[in-house]
């Protein structure tokens, strides 16, 4: 499974989100590849991914993509990420 973690600049918040998403995936024992992307490359990256994780402010910026976009409110809360990943995986 391929996941894209999106932030504005690609060096800060997406890296944190990627790290914590990886932690959540390990806890769920799910095999997935998480890529950190900035808003510029997000749309392209999203097309080749199964899931996009981002903050509420950037959902509009990402716009229409064929992939599900899930909002994470607290990038440092592994529980929130785990819960939302579980919901997505259960579909």
């Amino acid at each position, binding site marked *: 499974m391929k996941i894209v973690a999106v*932030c*504005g*600049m*690609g*060096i*800060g*918040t997406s*890296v*944190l*989100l990627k*790290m*914590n998403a990886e932690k959540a995936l390990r806890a769920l024992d799910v095999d997935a590849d998480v890529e*950190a992307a*900035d*808003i510029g490359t997000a749309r392209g990256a999203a097309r080749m991914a199964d899931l996009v994780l981002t*903050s*509420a*402010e*950037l959902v509009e*910026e990402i716009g229409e993509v064929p992939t599900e976009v899930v909002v994470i*409110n*607290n*990038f*440092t*809360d*592994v529980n929130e990420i785990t819960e939302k990943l579980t919901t997505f995986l259960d579909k």
Partner: protein
Amino acid sequence: MTLVERLPETAIRTRALAADWREAIALAGNGLVAQGLTTEEYTAEMVSAVETYGPYIVIAPGFALAHSRPSPAVLGTGFSWVGLSEPVDFGSESNDPVRLVVGLAALDHDAHLAAMSSLAAVLADDAVLDELISAPTPAEVRAILTRVDRADHEGS
């Protein structure tokens, strides 16, 4: 390099006063400039990022990671730390108001990953975060971060 290794005392401000989110980011920018890591242009870039994309940098309750993309205004990779005496609103729906701003400058997309790991560990612990935000001096902030680092390594 861990987070504390990237935060000399010159990089840290505690109990700082900022009138609004722009000032809070400017303080974080000053901390980077003081270490010779960025030019003042980068501070403007960090503010511009929020003007363009909104307060997406407020990624956890009370915490903002100020940063912009690698640019000519970035001279080196590193962090700054600003503990605010009064919380400041950034306009974030779920995570306002902000009490701690960490400034980040990176020369490329990988240069700072170990420190980001350190930062993630610190942010994940509410008790430690509270301690850090209320720390009265930069030396105290460094002492807490060092203690957290040590504990992390002993555990692994």
